[in-house]
């Protein structure tokens, strides 16, 4: 069986990804100082952070050039665990809106 080392991208690709990641960080700062609702701010910043992470995994960590089975093995399990953590939010909002318990 052939062992893959994963092909690395060209320097040009790395530079484009590098600039894109830093530009997205800049956009996040603009969002932080904009007058929008806190929940919208969180979603926008998280969405941009996910794009940054996807760029880093795909191009810097060379997931793009690895065998597809590796991604299929690692990513769905991780996303599933992180998604399951979202069950805490209902309790977090309960603490905020139902305090004190007598109401």
């Amino acid at each position, binding site marked *: 069986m052939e062992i893959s*080392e994963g092909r*690395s991208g060209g320097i040009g690709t790395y530079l484009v990804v590098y600039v894109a990641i830093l530009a997205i960080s800049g956009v*996040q700062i603009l969002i932080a100082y904009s007058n929008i609702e806190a929940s919208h701010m969180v979603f926008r910043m998280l969405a941009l952070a996910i794009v940054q992470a996807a760029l880093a995994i795909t191009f*810097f960590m060379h997931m793009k050039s690895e*065998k597809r089975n*590796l991604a299929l093995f690692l990513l769905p399990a*991780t996303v599933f665990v*992180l998604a399951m*953590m979202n069950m805490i939010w209902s309790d977090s909002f309960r603490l905020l809106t139902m305090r004190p318990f007598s109401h």
Partner: protein
Amino acid sequence: MGSVVETREAPAFAIPHKKLVMWLFIISDAVTFGAILFAYGYLRNATTDWPKPFESASVLNAYIMTVVLVTSSLTMLMAIRAAKTGERPRAAVWAWLTVAGGLLFALLHLKEWLGLIGQGLTLFANPWGSGLFGAAFFSITGLHLTHVVAGCVAISVVILGYKRGRYDRMDLKIWGLYWHFVDMIWMFVVPLMYLLNVKR
């Protein structure tokens, strides 16, 4: 005595075992960071007097730290490229630049911490609001900083071994994966920890 038939199992997913182990570590570490960031989100959402202490100087510092860390990821990629073409001294120089970037990041981080501590921020109290802020801030950024420092130490050990021929380019590449992961985690820490708590 019968002949011994050697059987070797093919590497899973057609990647070297060491690399697979690093990927598994990265996944488990991602879940660890995910858990503490979710815990932070839980507290942040449920606390009405959550402090927003970060002034524009802190935001600028966080952006500079991001630039330093992402640049160090780029130098790590250059090190791996040089290693691939067999240019060992050049690969070592690029990898040392990565370590230098990590150390600069750590210094900027400590400067930020000392500034906040000087303003009265401790693990359990602060002058601005909920005492939970300090615990969340120091534990999340502290765990990340520990990863950065550990990465600097590990990459330094690999460079020294690589120059002596003890380690090969795959070791450099594997620790490159770790370094990019640390970089990636910072992309979540900055918006959640700093940018959502900007003073206006």
